[in-house]
Each structure stands twice: as structure tokens, then as C-alpha cells.
């Protein structure tokens, strides 16, 4: 431990006497009896080198760690494509109820009426908002949703005797999970370049489709924050070639209540409940990636899904809404399971609590998301004269457009050209100002890209301040920016050393290098 400023708390430095650690009741049989039930040859010889710590030490350690971590609660988190909106705290309280926390998925339906009714309501709500016919809540993340939907599409083609369709088309601006998911299903990936301006290039698409097209995967608005105005035409092209249209729902926050993938011509879609519906996913997860599909794909969905019927007099009471809820087997054609149980139920319950706040006014959420995004873009790109004069050079727009949706991209290429300051430098410098950095270098089609998504839960004051701080960064001495961050707990971290040396676990004993 190095004090007086930097001090590292190391969980493995807690080394109480053997036998300390969490107090528990005694086993219900004598230990010697119990030991007899464990075959000799396989009983553990030495216990794992876990810390021996008391509750006070644990509390202080993780409190200390948390204070070295940035979340939405700490400050503005404009991580494009990730929809880092506020996580309402009620939802965390709800999932502590025994009716979700202490429930086993294999309990009989009579024990699960409440959960089944929430699952059913969520399936219906998501279908409605997306213009799909059937929804499964089983996939536990967006990528798994993609994978699941592509598996369904794969079985669909198979059922039509079109196993020859072995290619999935993705635009070059697609999220990495799109090609990765399709590839895991065994598909070859056909990447098509974006048109000038970042939108889908219909000619390129026309050139790419064919007898071997299984599907096209695309998000709309695109990762540049642009609404693909020719999306129905794209769908027509793919459908005409016999392919299926897959909608990456990561950007669903932009359009709820305004339009939907069904209307755009999609056959399948995933939702990111942890983005659009605010499920917190600290450090990288948990997510929840339900999918919705049109009628013709329904019978391939993972099994089972929640269903209901009017309650018969002999049925038990249930939730009191007059229905009896049950698991419906999707049947023979179902792809089966992608997660052992019913997906991330806790995330579904949180998302349910989230959506209930808006109800039929969910579109207000999208309106504010789009309002904030356009407003922020506007004030960044239109500083007052004095500010503008102080700036070395303005970033270029990631796309030439009047209007963006819920996010937008800026290119730091002009800056880099002028004085060598890269997008990464700007991102790191923003950390000093108390922000999480925007998404960096994605989509790859925008050079030196910063992708900014403010979400609907940021106030005008925060947006104003961010714009003004970004202007400051753009007017700072390049040296200050390239050597940033300066005020964070650690300074720029050597990622190359990490990859070369691969110290992937605590060595035991003292912390390295102390």
C-alpha cells in the first residue's frame, strides 16, 4: 500500500487467520459424517487462494474500487450506440422482490403466474412497438438475439429447401456483432460499402444479393445516426432475391412510436433491453436481447414462449386479470434453446417497469432522445463567434445531413491533419472534463470518429456544458490534449504492455511492482 495520494486496495492483501470469512450455520450432519460421503480420491487437498477478509474489509475494498469507476451516475456518458440512459432505481428495488429473485424456472406454472404475465405483456408490447408478430425473451444480449434470429432464418431457408443460401450481407458500418453472429451460424459475410454520406448504397446491395443471400443485417437509424430513407427499397431488393431482412435493434431508442421495423419491411429484429429499456449493465452486462419475428419465422423461435388463455373456473386465481398464463411449446421446428432457462428474466422485469412509466407515451422517450441528439449536435457545430475563433479547427460531421436521429458522429480528421491531435486524444481529454468518452473509431467508415449519443435523460444544462467543454478541448494546446488524461486516477494506460505481458491474474503475495 502506497499512501499519501495513491493507495491501492488489494483484495488478496486481506489475510485473516484461517477460518475467518463469512459466518455460516453448521452443516446439518456432523462434518466427519459428511466427509465420508465424498469419495476419497477426489476430495480437495488445498483450498483456493481466496482472500480471508471480514465484512468491514470487503465493504471498504469495493467502495474504494467503485470510487475508481465511472458510471452514468458519475457523469455524462455519451457512448454512441450504447444508449447509456439513466437507470431508474425503482427497477432495482423490484427485482429484489422474492417473486423474481427467489424463483426457479422449473417451478410449475401455478407458481409463476405473475412472472408469466409480465413475460406475456412484454412479448406483446415489444411486438407492437416493432411491428412484429411473435417475440421471444430468451436471448440474453443483443449479439445473442442476432445469433438466435439468424439461426431461425437459417432453419427457415432449410425448411424451404434453400440450404444453398449461405451468405449474409452487412453494411460496412454495421456493429461487429452482426458479422460475428452470422458467421457463428456458419454464414459467409458479404460486406457492402456505404454510399457517399454514410447511408446504405442500394447499388452495392443490388450487386450483392443473389440466390445465395440468406439475409441482410442492418440497423436503422444507421450507426451514423441517420435514418435510412430507402430502407423499404432495400427490403424489397433483399426479399426479391429471396433473402430475409434482419433489424439490429440497438438503435431502437430513436424510433419508438414513430415507425417500426415491421413497416420498414423487416422480418426479424432484436431489442436491446439494456439499452432502450434501461436495464443496467455495469462493466459490460447483463443484457437482454429478445427478438421479434414476422409470422413466417415464428415457428422457428426458441422454445417456450409465454401464452395465456381465459381463465377457467377450475384454474387457480393467478394474477387476478382473468387469464391463465402458461408456457407454450414452440413445437417441432423450434431451434430449441439459446440459454438454458428463459433468458435474463431480471432484465425483462426491469424493462417492464421501465416501459410502464411511459405506457402509450413511449414515443416521448424517442422524441427526447432525438431532440437531445440534434440539439447537442447543433450547439457543438454552431459555437458563438468568440468561441469559434478560439478553436483550432472544427470537427467534420460524420455525415452531411440536416437532421440526425438519436446519435451522431463527428470526425476529428481535420484536427489530426492540422496538428496531429487524434480522435483518441480528444476522447481521453474529455475524461479530464468529467465525461465518459464518446464511442471511438466506430463506425469505421468515419475517419477519427467520435460517436455521440446523449440519450433522453440528459438535461439541456449538461448538453450545453459538454458542447462548451468540447470547444475548450478543441482550442487547447495540442500537447495538453495528446498527453491527456491528466486528472484521472491513472494516466494513459499502456495497452500494449498488457497485451504483450498478459498478467491475467493476481500473482499471489504482494501486488506486482509494489
Amino acid at each position: 500500500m502506497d499512501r499519501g495520494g495513491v493507495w491501492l486496495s488489494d483484495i488478496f492483501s486481506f489475510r485473516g487467520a484461517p477460518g475467518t470469512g463469512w459466518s455460516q450455520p453448521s452443516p446439518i450432519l456432523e462434518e466427519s459424517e459428511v466427509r465420508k460421503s465424498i469419495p476419497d480420491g477426489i476430495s480437495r487437498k488445498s483450498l483456493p487462494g481466496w482472500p480471508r477478509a471480514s465484512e468491514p474489509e470487503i465493504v471498504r475494498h469495493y467502495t474504494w474500487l467503485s470510487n475508481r469507476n465511472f458510471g452514468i451516475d458519475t457523469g455524462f456518458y455519451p457512448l454512441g450506440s450504447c444508449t447509456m440512459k439513466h437507470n431508474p432505481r425503482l427497477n432495482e428495488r423490484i427485482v429484489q422482490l422474492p417473486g423474481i429473485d427467489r424463483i426457479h424456472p422449473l417451478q410449475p406454472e401455478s407458481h409463476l403466474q405473475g412472472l408469466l404475465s409480465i413475460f406475456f405483456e412484454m412479448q406483446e408490447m415489444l411486438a407492437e412497438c416493432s411491428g412484429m408478430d411473435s417475440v421471444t425473451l430468451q436471448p440474453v444480449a443483443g449479439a445473442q438475439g442476432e445469433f438466435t434470429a439468424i439461426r431461425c432464418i437459417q432453419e427457415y431457408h432449410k425448411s424451404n429447401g434453400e440450404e444453398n443460401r449461405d451468405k449474409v450481407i452487412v453494411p460496412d458500418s454495421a456493429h461487429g456483432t452482426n458479422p460475428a453472429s452470422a458467421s457463428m451460424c456458419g454464414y459467409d459475410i458479404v460486406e457492402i460499402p456505404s454510399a457517399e454520406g454514410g447511408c446504405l448504397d442500394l447499388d452495392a446491395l443490388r450487386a450483392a444479393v443473389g440466390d445465395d443471400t440468406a439475409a441482410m443485417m442492418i440497423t436503422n437509424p444507421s450507426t451514423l445516426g441517420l435514418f435510412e430513407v430507402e430502407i423499404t427499397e432495400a427490403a424489397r431488393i433483399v426479399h426479391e432475391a429471396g433473402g430475409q431482412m434482419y433489424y439490429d435493434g440497438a438503435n431502437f431508442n430513436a424510433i419508438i412510436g414513430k415507425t417500426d421495423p415491421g413497416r420498414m419491411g423487416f422480418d426479424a429484429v432484436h431489442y436491446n433491453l439494456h439499452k432502450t429499456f434501461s436495464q443496467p449493465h455495469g462493466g459490460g452486462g447483463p443484457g437482454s436481447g429478445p427478438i421479434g419475428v414476422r409470422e413466417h419465422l415464428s415457428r422457428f423461435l426458441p422454445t417456450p414462449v409465454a401464452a395465456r388463455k381465459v381463465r377457467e373456473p377450475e384454474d387457480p386465481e393467478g394474477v387476478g386479470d382473468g387469464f391463465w398464463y402458461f408456457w407454450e411449446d414452440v413445437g417441432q421446428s423450434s431451434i430449441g434453446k439459446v440459454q438454458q432457462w428463459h433468458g435474463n428474466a431480471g432484465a425483462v422485469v426491469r424493462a417492464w417497469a421501465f416501459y410502464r412509466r411511459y405506457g402509450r407515451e413511449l414515443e416521448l422517450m424517442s422524441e427526447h432522445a432525438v431532440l437531445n441528439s440534434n440539439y447537442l449536435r447543433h450547439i457543438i457545430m454552431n459555437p458563438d463567434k468568440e468561441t469559434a475563433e478560439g478553436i483550432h479547427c472544427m470537427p467534420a460531421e460524420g455525415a452531411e445531413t440536416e437532421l440526425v436521429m438519436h446519435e451522431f458522429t463527428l470526425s476529428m480528421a481535420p484536427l489530426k491533419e492540422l496538428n496531429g491531435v487524434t480522435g483518441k486524444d480528444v476522447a481521453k481529454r474529455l475524461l479530464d472534463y468529467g465525461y465518459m468518452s464518446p464511442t471511438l473509431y466506430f463506425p469505421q467508415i468515419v475517419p477519427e470518429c467520435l460517436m455521440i449519443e446523449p440519450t433522453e435523460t440528459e438535461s439541456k444544462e449538461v448538453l450545453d456544458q459538454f458542447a462548451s467543454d468540447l470547444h475548450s478541448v478543441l482550442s487547447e494546446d495540442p500537447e495538453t490534449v495528446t498527453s491527456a488524461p491528466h486528472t484521472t486516477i491513472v494516466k494513459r494506460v499502456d495497452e500494449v504492455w498488457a497485451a504483450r505481458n498478459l498478467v491475467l491474474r493476481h500473482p499471489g503475495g504482494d501486488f506486482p511492482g509494489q
Partner: protein
Amino acid sequence: MVDQLPNAGREHEMLEAMGMSSMDDLFSNIPVGIRRAEPLPLPDPQSEEEIWADAQRILGSNVSLDDRPSFLSAGLSRNFVPSVVGMLATRGEFLTSYTPYQPEVSQGMLQAMWEFQTMICELVDLPISNVSMYDASTAAAEAITCAVRVNNRKALQKDIVYISSLVPPHRMSVIRNYTIGAGIEIRTIEHDDSGNLLLSSAESATGSCAVYVEQPNSLGIVDIGLTELKSIIGDETSLIVGIDAVSLGVLEPPGKWGADMVVGEGQPFGIGPTFGGPIYGIFACSEKYLRQMPGRVVGQSWDTEGSLAFTLTLSTREQHIRRHRATSNICSNETLIALMGAIHMSLLGPEGLERLALRVAASTEATKRSISRINSVELVNPESSNFREFAIRVPGSASDALLHLDSNGVIGGLDLGMWWEGMSDCILVGVDERTSEDDIAALHDGLRGWIEEVCG
């Protein structure tokens, strides 16, 4: 919902700044033909107070495992999670962060995950762990595809893996979905009457890409024969072991007996059964698999001033960089739940883990003894050693027996007919550290009562 929208009521001011006059202007890029005309047919907006009331009412209509004696386990544990776990993990800085792409402001989560990796390594005795998979089934599935990627070139049985026939169907289904695209063929290794893997049949796996077995297996059987498996299948075939994480408080870790990869459910550490999710999958492996493994990994490094620092590493395997050539499509994972697991594990400490395992073992033994005393109930594998689960055969239909128990307020276990057709007269009885003498008596009496009714 205005309490969630800081700019509610200020729309006009902001639109004006942009020279717009209505919210509709913002959506003018959406072609009219695909605009939604009618409002969403959803219920009225609710306040927090109303949602809370609804949630209490609706979820209150579920029956919780804690409400009654419960013997349903089958891969999820009716555990006890110390209060600090939730309170610390839901601190906003953890709860509301995301993937730590910017290490300079994410040291907390990165260090916690590095410590998590260490604890998992120590638990299973392998040198490498990632920071979580979705669950045990996807961890097993991705371990298999990983093994194929690594071993296929040298494999004599190309694209082939062998899996214990006792891996339950829902887990097998996930594995099938994940392996189908890679063109992997799955073959089965059978078990003998005492539920132990047929080592003779395992010999046929030599030269294949991987063998996947579970220890204890799905019937709770601790199979000492598995410790010989590695020497049978050899170095070029990966031994993948699915574990019950708690059992490693008393059972030798698979790393010690040759496992190349260890996967399993992390849930008993950190979170309640929570209807099966969010939970997290454990994934650990030996060095050979490092560059083909799925998921995120944290490494130690230094900052420009020479201070110790942590960062994500080996990202070049991942989808956001390698795209369709990535080792997995996993992006959002289960880190927050793994954090809960890390806190729980560090609270337990080595001896706490051991005691937890001993408690489960004691519950298993005590329940087994009590139930096997019932006339006309028999143990399916009378010779086996069990941990957490054991199968019984009842004189009649398992589902009838369970229904009877249910009407007596006892959750009796799993109807094994749901997994394997031939076992519809078998119940998988699952215990945990909290199983009490009273619980056991309730199960015993309930089963006896049913038998008296059935057998007259």
C-alpha cells in the same frame, strides 16, 4: 414519466435554438409511408408509486422457493447471498457503467474483474479465466467451439466432439445451436448403471477435438472415474469439465486432474436463482486456448507515470475488432453479476467456501438417507456419491408425486421425465446449504403420504 426526462417542458426552447418549431420536425426524415399514424395501443403512463404497487401485486402472486420446503435445484441454487453483495454491486459507479473501454476512468471495475479472474482460476485450478459468459450452457458451448478451433488441425476425428449422455437436454440444445454453424458433429459417451461415465466408451473420443463431461453430473453424481479421462483422451483432445462451483469447496478442482477448460454456472456465488437470469457463466482454460477463447479478459499494466493499472486486453479476438473472424459474437456479457460473484467469493474466503460445500454435502447426505428409508422409493444410482442432487424412482408417475407434494406445500424436485422419456417415474431431488431437517421431514412425509394413497 416526466421525472425521467430532464428536458420535459423545455422542448420548445431547444427546438427554437435549432430553428425548428415542433417535435415532428425532428422526424421529418422518416418517409411518410412508414410513419406510424395511430398511438401505441399501450396502457396509460404510470408513476413510480403505481408501478411499485403493480409489481408487488403481480410478482407477489408467484410462489418463491423460500416460501416452502424446496428440493428443486437442477443447475440453479436456492442460495443465501450476503446483504453486502447487492449493496456494493449496485453502487452507481458499478451499476451504471458499461464495458471499460476507457481504462483511465474504469480502474474499479477492471481491478474487480481481474480479481474475479484470479478467484476463478484459484477455484478451478487453471491459469486463465474470462470475466463471464452468459450462463453455464453458453460457456460449455463456446468452450466446445473454441476447442475445435484449437485442436481441429491436428485432430484425427476432425470436427467431432464427445459429450456425456447425462448432459440435460436444455443444455444440449444450446450446445447444438452453437455448434451447428461450425459444422461440429456431436457424439455421445454413455454412463453405466451407477451413473459413472463409461471410460471404455470414452476411449473412442481419442483423437477428437474435445470431450465435455460434468462433475458432479446432472444427477448429482460425483464420478471419480473422470479423473482418469485426460490420460485416456490425450493431449490433443480437450477435456472440458462442467462444474458445480460450490462443490469445489470439497472436490478436487478439475485443473488438478487434467481439465483443459472448466465451465459452469457462477450463480451460487452472487445472485439468487432469479428465474434463471441474469446469472453468469464461468469460463476458465489453460494457456493453449488463450487466443481462441471467447469473452472479455482484463490484464494488468502500467500508466504513463508508472502506476499499476488494469485494462481490457486480448481484444483482437473480439467481434468489435475482428468482426466475422472473432472467436465469439459475445459483446454485452454478465460482468455486473460476476462482480456480485466476486464480492460473495471474497466474503466466503477459502474456509467459507469449504463450509458452504460441506453444508450442501450434508444436506445431500441427510436427504438421501431420509428418502431412501421410504418403502417403495429407490435411489436410481444407489452406489453413487452425490453432491446437491440425486435421482429417486417412485412407484408411479413422478409428475403425480410432485403434484401431490405441491398440494402439501412442498416443491419436491424435478420430474426427470421432462429431460428423458424413460425416466418419467424418477424425480431429481436437489438440496442446498439451507435445506433443514424440517424440510427433509416435509419431503419425506409428503412422499410417504402419496405412496400410501397410490399403493393403497
